[in-house]
């Protein structure tokens, strides 16, 4: 019973803050509304026994939203936060599509005869997850890590306008790189 109340409260918080993201005019409020939505979902995951995943979700998303807020402030310039300007397009079709999808998904969720539960959860779910990714599912983790690493590299390459020739000179022989800002290692 208590769990039910908690769940529905969290559900309301999650969806309401999700809607808030696209309603408020303030960039900071939009970003942190999304963070609240993620926190609510994270707690729901903890309720269904996914302690590690739920808490990791909260950790990652709060971090990401803190960074996201900076990007919002940085790039949105003249934005709805300061001047009430509409930065949307094809609102009506988006709404129709979204509602249509919701009806479809909701119908699916309610009408499909879901099978009964197969198997029982492990006693220590976190440990079982660890064993899974270090055992039978190691390949998945082995794939994720190079993908993440490639993402770091690709992100830097895309975002950074300065290559090594800009930094170290045409013959790469400059002794200290020509950076707009000095680093901490005396380079």
């Amino acid at each position, binding site marked *: 019973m208590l769990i039910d109340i908690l769940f529905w409260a969290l559900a309301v918080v999650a969806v309401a803050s999700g809607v808030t993201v696209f309603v408020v005019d303030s*960039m900071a409020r939009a970003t942190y509304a999304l963070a609240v939505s993620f926190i609510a979902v994270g707690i729901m995951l903890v309720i269904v026994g996914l302690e590690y995943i739920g808490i990791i979700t909260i950790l990652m998303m709060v971090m990401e939203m803190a960074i996201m807020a900076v990007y919002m402030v*940085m790039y949105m*310039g003249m934005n709805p936060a300061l001047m009430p300007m509409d930065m949307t397009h094809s609102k009506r079709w988006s709404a129709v599509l979204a509602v249509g999808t919701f009806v479809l998904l909701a119908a699916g969720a309610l009408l499909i005869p879901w099978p009964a539960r197969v198997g029982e959860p492990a006693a220590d779910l976190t440990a079982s997850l660890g064993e899974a990714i270090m055992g039978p599912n190691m390949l998945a983790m082995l794939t994720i890590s190079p993908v993440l690493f490639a993402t770091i590299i690709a992100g830097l390459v895309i975002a950074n306008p300065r290559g090594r020739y800009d930094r170290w000179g045409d013959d790469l022989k400059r002794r200290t790189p020509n950076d707009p800002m*000095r680093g901490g290692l005396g380079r």
Partner: protein
Amino acid sequence: MGLTSVLARWASKRVHVLIIEVPGWGASRMLLEAELDRRGWAVALSPADADLLAVCGMPGEELRAACDFVWNQLPGPRARVNVTGSGSLSTLLNEASAHLGDDSAQREDARSRSQNTVAEDSAPDAGEHDGMAPEEMDHGSMDHGMDHGEMDMPMPGGIPLAEGGDDRDGLEMDFLTVPFGPVMPHWPAGLVVDCVLQGDVVVSAQARVLEAVSAPTEVSTEEMTYLVEARLRIIRLCDHASQLLALAGWQTAAQNARRLRDDARWSADIAEHVAPLDRLRRRVERSVLLRWSLKGISLGGISVGRPVGGTDALAEAGAATPADQAGVAIRDRLIGWLHEAAALAATSSDTRSPAAGDLDRAREARDLLGALPALLRGTELGTARLLIAGLGLDTAALAPAHERTHD
């Protein structure tokens, strides 16, 4: 009733004081700071942190306006004192403390203020936002949607939209016009630097000095006569060093320099100060972290003043401060100051005649002020503060020169 009076009694043990120094009244400020240290009161970093506003000296018109503006930003309970001499300092602070603890008076003050702000809010004064009033902590932010929640107004909070421009990484970023000073901790008296910022990087800057209404010399000479030039110079060097150290975030060293400064004012034999000054200098020289965090911050091509002192002092200090060489590093400058102070203390016979004339000092200060905009361009805020502190700007020397040009 009992609780509020208990709170008031406890609060009076730790009053936070916002100090505004008028150019030329450095001595009053230093005396005040020493008195605050003695009482265990704290120096406030911003108006919101302050209970007591202490204006050291007689501000000119513009500076007085700035003081009034800051006065309005004190949250209250609040009190205001004007420090112009040392004799009454203790009673002055006692009275201020009593006023702070006087609940009924403070309530009255709060009531009259809230009425005022209602009146102000109904007619927002646009002129207030364009940088005339210095240190507008809450109006200075005219950019990137730091203002929100006022969607109904075309200009939220009466603050106009920011314009943009490319930053040093080639990204278009908003410009933000912020006046720095004259109310800032560890800041040259009366200096205002109107900065255009992108984030925390200074895009361009313009410096000016708000003047005092009268030079303090008439008022404070009587207690200063025995402080001859060399001793004054030591005090000033220690003060500069203390401010620079405080900005570098090294509180104990800054406090150390400040105590040396205050001791230098009162001690009978200035020669006693050689050893502590040398100790402080060695401590600064030894700090790896300070060397690391100040590395690469230099005053560029600005020639900073020649050290004043005997020949050996000159030679020694000159070694640490290559004044004529391009690019004096801030750290060398700091060590040079301490070195020079120690050398002065060692050679001082308390009879030396002034080595640099008023005219020289005025010219030097004017040069430094002129060089400031170029120096600050493209620096990050923290670096900019260190650079300004590293100049050791003597705004007091500037004031008479200004008056002359105005005449």
